[in-house]
């Protein structure tokens, strides 16, 4: 599955916020958005990932962008994960239909039945500006890649 390419308008999708309210393509309008697709709440690599990304949330917002974590975990699990780590990155659930949004972005790992590890930067016009799919779900992309992606967006 290929990750969604820069220049592509985002597909219609529906994720769930922690309070169960929907998060759709309309929520991307007007703000640069970083979507962080990760496999599993509470897994070791995803724990490292959210902890290191949380370190630079202020810098990401300083670039005028917002960041969200996306996985197929249900909202309650995502909230517990967020609370346990003490991070501020809002979580979006792709639980039902499972992985539908991730598949639409090319960020689903079929062999594992899970969200792949991918980063997508979407411009305020809902067009993808930059994307990155890890070589495998166990590989953790550094935050430097997010800032490279945001720089490409600004260019």
């Amino acid at each position, binding site marked *: 599955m290929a990750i969604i390419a820069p220049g592509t308008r985002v597909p219609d999708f529906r994720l769930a916020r922690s309070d169960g309210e929907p998060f759709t393509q309309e929520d991307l309008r007007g703000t640069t958005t970083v979507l962080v697709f990760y496999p599993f709440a509470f897994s070791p*690599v995803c724990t*490292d*990932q*959210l*902890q*290191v990304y*949380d*370190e*630079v949330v202020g*810098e990401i917002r*300083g*670039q*005028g*962008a917002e960041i969200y974590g996306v996985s197929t975990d249900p909202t309650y699990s995502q909230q517990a994960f967020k609370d346990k*780590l*003490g*991070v501020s990155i809002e979580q979006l659930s792709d639980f039902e239909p499972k992985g539908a949004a991730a598949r639409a972005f090319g960020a689903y790992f079929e062999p594992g039945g899970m969200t792949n590890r991918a980063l997508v930067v979407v411009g305020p016009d809902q067009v993808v500006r930059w994307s990155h799919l890890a070589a495998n779900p166990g590989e*953790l*992309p*550094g*935050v*430097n*890649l997010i*800032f*490279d992606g*945001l*720089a490409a967006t*600004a260019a």
Partner: protein
Amino acid sequence: MAPASDLGSAPVPALRSDDHVRGAPGAPLVVVYGDFTCPRCAVAWERLRDAPVRVAFRHFALRAKHPRAVALAHAAEAAAAQGAFWPMAASLWGDQGRIDDPHLWERCAQLGLDVDRFEADRRSPAVADRVRRDVHEGLRAGVAATPTLFAGDGAAGRPGPPDAEFLAALAI
């Protein structure tokens, strides 16, 4: 437009005069980005301590990783100001269960450090800046987990403690 970020990709900086380095000058160099609250870093220390390598340590202390991660990085820098970076590092990795302030004072006493000076130094802007610099440079080099090891010019960072294969490759 938002100001440009200075967190985009950059190579891991070359060894510099204020790095914390131990080991024979001619031995192969390993740059370790680590954290004193991290059990995997304690394992890395166990494996590197007596290995025939030169080790340079840089801080990768994240606020979200552990409530004491940044505090211990500052403590190690304050010990460094009294010439005791590695003894303090070995002390912290050797016992990661006793890391509150009274435990740090106890460690200082055991290492023969001036506790009052340690207390002043670990709260100084210079110490905070130094730790922040290391973390910032690590982020730019793609460090995302501790420990991450860099060996050789331009090589990508390798997450996790060194295994026998990694150490054997260094010795060649």
